[in-house]
């Protein structure tokens, strides 16, 4: 049932055509496609596997795919040199170039099918966030791209910025992780964001896969009475909340095995260690958004996980 819909192969499943945005902010000119997967790529090799993954996920779940490439403004120095030639032409050249790169990337996966690619002018994080909002996407897929020095634009800092700004979960695909994850480690701090992250995980892990909820207690063990009381409460709370979250995940996707692990130490380190031990191909964390005051930002643990991960990373807002 899930695999029966293949949106990529449809007549024009991707409703978009090249949107030639100019120096203005990007405009979303198309109708909302509910529950779409938004693939953000820069056409470089670091995001090749993100393209393959997004297409595979779209095929598996039947969710329509939106492909978005951000045409980043040139650094200031380059722009000044570019003033020697007509600026619009330069932009057009870069835009065409990017479009071709992305088209080749997609064709490498799906062959000679018609593909709609959006090229939007602007910073990747803002462009992706705006498009995700405007198109009603439910998931952003981008390259983690850290292992390829050439993938500067969609490198892990870009993935981090996209994750920080996106209104929906962002999945940063590490090179080599094309297939759907089978073992996911979820960093759980029991904030609402981490619960959303856990739920988002159940939607991307392959059927029959395993989701391991990891909570790291950062407080060192202490024998004094004060700490003893807190520890009792803490452990009882973690046990009870683990149960609640596991039940929710099970209800969301009954084909998954849910495990829970309580660890001690530095959260990001321990989560990555456990992910390595389990051979996980996905690590998930919630973004800590104190949105009102400081704009979008990513919590320290989540940022460290994103920077340190050797597998794909899912960040939920």
């Amino acid at each position, binding site marked *: 049932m899930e695999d029966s819909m293949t949106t990529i192969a449809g007549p024009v499943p991707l409703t978009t055509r090249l949107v030639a945005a100019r120096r203005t902010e990007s405009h979303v000119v198309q109708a909302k496609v509910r529950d779409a997967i938004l693939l953000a790529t820069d056409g470089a090799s670091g995001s090749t596997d993100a393209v393959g993954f997004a297409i595979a996920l779209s095929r598996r779940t039947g969710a329509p795919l939106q492909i978005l490439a951000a045409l980043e403004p040139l650094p200031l120095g380059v722009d000044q040199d570019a003033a020697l030639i007509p600026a619009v032409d330069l932009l057009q050249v870069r835009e065409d170039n990017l479009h071709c790169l992305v088209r080749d990337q997609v064709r490498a996966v799906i062959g000679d099918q018609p593909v709609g690619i959006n090229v939007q002018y602007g910073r990747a994080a803002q462009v992706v966030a705006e498009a995700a909002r405007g198109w009603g996407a439910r998931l952003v897929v981008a390259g983690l791209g850290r292992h390829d020095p050439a993938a500067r634009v969609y490198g892990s800092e870009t993935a981090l910025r996209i994750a920080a700004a996106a209104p929906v979960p962002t999945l940063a695909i590490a090179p080599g992780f094309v297939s759907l994850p089978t073992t996911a480690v979820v960093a759980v701090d029991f904030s609402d964001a981490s619960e959303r992250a856990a739920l988002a995980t159940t939607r991307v892990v392959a059927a029959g896969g395993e989701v391991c909820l990891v909570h790291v207690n950062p407080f060192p063990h202490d024998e*004094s*009475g004060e700490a*003893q009381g*807190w520890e009792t409460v803490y452990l*009882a*709370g*973690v046990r009870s909340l683990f149960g609640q979250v596991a039940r929710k995940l099970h209800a969301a996707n009954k084909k998954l095995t849910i495990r829970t692990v309580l660890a001690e130490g530095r959260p990001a380190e321990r989560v990555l260690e456990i992910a390595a031990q389990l051979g996980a191909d996905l690590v998930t964390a919630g973004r800590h958004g104190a949105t009102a005051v400081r704009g979008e930002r990513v919590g320290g643990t989540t940022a460290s996980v994103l920077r340190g991960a050797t597998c794909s990373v899912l960040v939920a807002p």
Partner: protein
Amino acid sequence: MSTVDLHEHVTTSGQDTPVAGVTADTAGMLWKPATLLDRILVATDGSRAGGAALRMARELVARKRGSVGDVRVVTVLHRPAPAGMAGFVLGETASVPSYARSSLSRIRRQIRSAGLPGWELHVEFGSPARAICRAAKHTASTLVIIGIGRHTPTARLFGADTARRVVANADVSVLSVAEDTPTLGRSVVVAVDFSAASARVARAAMSLLEPPANLHLVHVRPRLETAPPEMEGYQHIYMSGVEAALGELRSSLPKVDGITVGSFVITGAPDTAILDFARRLNAGFIAAGRHGHGIAERMLIGSTTNALLARAECPILTTPPVQRTSPRA
């Protein structure tokens, strides 16, 4: 019996005498209702508060149907000890200092009227709190009952202070009795912070209750409205942890016919909230465990115990911390 002793010895390692009234197991298997009342030491200086402590001891002994309670009385002469004498039991030696004769005979009259005539009177010298603790140790008492004077400012000051010092330093459970409320009633409010100390004091409190009675486990939650967003997860953990831990504590307590155990979470400053709650429930007494020394005293109950002693309108039961290192010199 020997297994019980062994168990107590193991779980209170490093301690020469087991904590009175408390078996340190967690399963509730070794709970012995009468332990706390095995050997009672009543401290009196002949005042009304001392009389209240004696009456409390008499009430508790009366609850132990069938057996005459082992009760001793201690009083302290606030003077340096005479050479070659740390303290004495009245009647066993003739050498009663002349300056103390009238006050000691007053205390004997008080024992006859407020307590029972057979209770022996130990006389100690020196600083009252220290001498009472010493006597508790020498007599291997399981419970110290001490009165808190209230009516005059000085009595309140000195009375409460001695009681506070005894509570802070005794290696046994202490029941502090205000002079106008020498009864335990039928309900107790147990201050709970989920340390081992609060589990111990809950058991001790239960052993003092006579069915039918109510035991209320009360946790005071600090106000968290202004916590930063990073704390969101910890708040969730705390809230659901308190609920779960209260349930665990409830089920870890021995089941006694006629004693109903309830649990409550209230918000506020620990001492005020506990006192308000106890007053609203018309609780017979309040129970609070001591953690130990150092930083632990800062938290909910350590510092709260002092405030409770100073302001409570009902008796206060405290249990000593279990010592982990070698006993203090």
